[in-house]
């Protein structure tokens, strides 16, 4: 035990002595958290020194608690863990004015700058989301009639938001009018001045851990200011056509990022995605739907000229080729040491790129929905997957793939294989032999028959089962499954009372 401890200590000391790391300056963030009353959120530590009688008393108390717990009647459902406060929905300044000053979380739709300033009264605000649904439609998403001149906040919002000093989460989605402050290459006082006058203000939020700037465009010179956000761990820039190779260079300076989402960033080259492996603490990466189809597609003509310029530029970049999850992207990402989750639906890679998946050291969760248009591809994929906890895929997967999954993925817990018409009852039998499997989505599997019911009835490990869009499933089947599967919490089927959960795709 002591030798292991000595080795670990030497590892740390070598990294510091050789210049790979140094103790950080935590004073500003810690004191800001202290002033914000954050100490109450930290679990209480044990008192440093226990006396003997205290230890005995603690032991007796623990025995009493265990006995009481064992004899206490159990509730029907396990207690839910402590959660962040549920955000209050607001749609106008009047809604905000009616909120108590102690409100902790707000989700707003369609605010303008004037309504936003009303939020400054909420000094305890931790969570804020501002959405403009008319600008958030992607690809073939649901089209709605947009208002003619929808309200929207402008880039002056950042100065206002920086006054909400306790914010931990800030999500701005579809705020297209902000983009008008970011001309190509900057102007007037130059790119740095623009960045300082906009996103740079967020530096005054010492507790900001999560930032989403999605469905509108922000270029690299403005995003360079993100490296000054000391507490930032999670960043989402989805559907942002300002995101290109230069943005990745700026993001590499945000060395504490643990989660990064760049879905539907159409101008993002695969070679730039590859460089994200240089982020030392990156655990979660989403680069899905960079596919030339999932463009922002809200109707109406409310977008400003700069937004239209970014969109045209992104189309040109995509048409040149090399954008999205290419072979180069996967080869590069295979060097990411702490990457656990990779969401890369609709990738642009070939078999060569997929083979790189076997080199991912820490990968546990993988979504490559849309890859696998031939049996050759699905075979190579099955042979290339590292041991996973979660897999989501949709393509020409068949019984042979299921058989390989059963043999090569002994710890798989969560599997989504919807609309795989070549999977038959034999393939399902292989999947259900994975003892760790808890979550199974096989909706619209047209190769299955009612003869698969005995297999499903014996799969007592399942907690979640999606059987929607399978024609032979009846209410009687659903009742049988509910009776036979003791752990089943969610069962989705196109039978009355079992189709409430919306599809994720």
């Amino acid at each position, binding site marked *: 035990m*002591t030798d292991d401890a000595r080795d670990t*200590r*030497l590892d740390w*000391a070598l990294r*510091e002595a050789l210049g790979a790391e140094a103790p950080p300056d935590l004073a500003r963030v*810690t004191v800001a958290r202290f002033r914000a009353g954050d100490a*109450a959120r*930290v679990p209480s530590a044990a008192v440093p020194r226990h006396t003997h009688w205290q230890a005995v008393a603690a032991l007796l108390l623990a025995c009493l608690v265990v006995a009481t717990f064992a004899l206490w009647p159990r509730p029907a459902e396990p207690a839910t863990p402590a959660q962040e406060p549920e955000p209050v929905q607001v749609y106008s300044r009047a809604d905000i004015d009616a909120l108590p000053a102690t409100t902790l979380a707000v989700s707003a739709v369609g605010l303008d700058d004037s309504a936003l300033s009303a939020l400054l009264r909420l000094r305890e605000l931790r969570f804020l989301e501002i959405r403009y649904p008319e600008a958030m439609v992607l690809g073939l998403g649901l089209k709605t009639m947009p208002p003619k001149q929808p309200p929207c906040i402008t880039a002056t919002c950042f100065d206002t938001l920086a006054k909400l000093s306790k914010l931990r989460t800030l999500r701005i989605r579809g705020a297209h009018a902000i983009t008008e402050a970011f001309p190509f290459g900057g102007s007037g006082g130059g790119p740095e001045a623009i960045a300082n006058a906009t996103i740079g203000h967020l530096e005054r939020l010492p507790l900001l851990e999560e930032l989403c700037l999605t469905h509108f465009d922000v270029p690299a010179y403005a995003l360079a200011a993100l490296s000054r956000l000391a507490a930032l761990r999670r960043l989402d820039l989805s559907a942002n056509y300002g995101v290109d190779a230069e943005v990745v260079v700026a993001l590499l300076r945000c060395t504490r990022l643990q989660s990064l989402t760049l879905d539907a960033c159409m101008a993002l080259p695969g070679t730039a995605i590859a460089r994200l492996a240089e982020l030392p*603490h990156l655990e979660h990466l989403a680069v899905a739907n960079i596919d030339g189809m999932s463009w922002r597609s809200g109707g109406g003509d409310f977008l400003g000229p700069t937004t239209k310029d970014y969109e045209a530029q992104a189309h040109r970049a995509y048409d040149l080729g090399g954008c999205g999850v290419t072979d180069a992207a996967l080869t590069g990402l295979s060097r990411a040491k702490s990457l656990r989750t990779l969401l890369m639906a609709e990738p642009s890679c070939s078999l060569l790129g997929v083979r790189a998946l076997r080199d991912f050291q820490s990968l546990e969760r993988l979504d490559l929905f849309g890859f696998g248009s031939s049996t050759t591809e699905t075979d190579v994929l099955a042979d290339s997957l590292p041991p996973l906890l979660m897999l989501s895929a949709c393509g020409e997967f068949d019984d042979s793939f299921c058989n390989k999954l059963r043999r090569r993925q002994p710890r798989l817990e969560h599997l989504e294989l919807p609309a795989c018409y070549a999977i038959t009852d034999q393939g399902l039998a292989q999947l259900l032999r994975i003892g760790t499997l808890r979550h199974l989505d096989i909706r619209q599997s047209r190769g299955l028959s009612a003869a698969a019911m005995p297999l499903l009835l014996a799969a007592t490990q399942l907690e979640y089962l999606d059987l929607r869009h399978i024609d032979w499933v009846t209410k009687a089947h659903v009742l049988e499954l509910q009776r036979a599967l003791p752990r089943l919490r969610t069962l989705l089927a196109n039978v009355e009372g079992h189709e409430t959960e919306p599809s994720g795709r």
Partner: protein
Amino acid sequence: MSRIDETASPQARADTTGDAAFAFVHRHQRGLWRFLRACGCPAHAADEVAQDALLLALERNVDDDAAPGYLRQAAKFLWLRRVRDEGRSHARWLDAAEQLWQQDCATDAGDGLIAALRTCLDVLPPRSRLALQRVYAEGTSRETLAAELGIGEHGARTLLQRIRAALRDCIERRLAP
């Protein structure tokens, strides 16, 4: 996140801000963060655990003399909560790590150990020094290192093991009273 500015004394910065909390954090953060790293806590987790431990100490108004011990206990508790799935073996392992810290690093926040290591590194043969630089400073894999040194992967592993053993002996000799 900025690194600690060693040239500005914590007291000077504290006087400037007029805030005792800043001074407290400045006095104790270096040793606490290094202790967590010496316990195997990854760097990004060490930032967060150290912050939480410092918050608890500030909240309870722990005085400076008691702070190092209190902070180590709080940090151990908070780190164990994060890795609780690994169970008791991790708790025992942490106790061993703390014992070593108490023995060699508690009085100077680890400065002496780092200084001893730097001296030991200075006398290493260039090839050994290069191997450490590649692996610990640049994150090179053993496979790449082996190719660079013209040896097999097994040879690279053995080389690193030997260097580490030599460094451990060297550090312990220098730290011995």
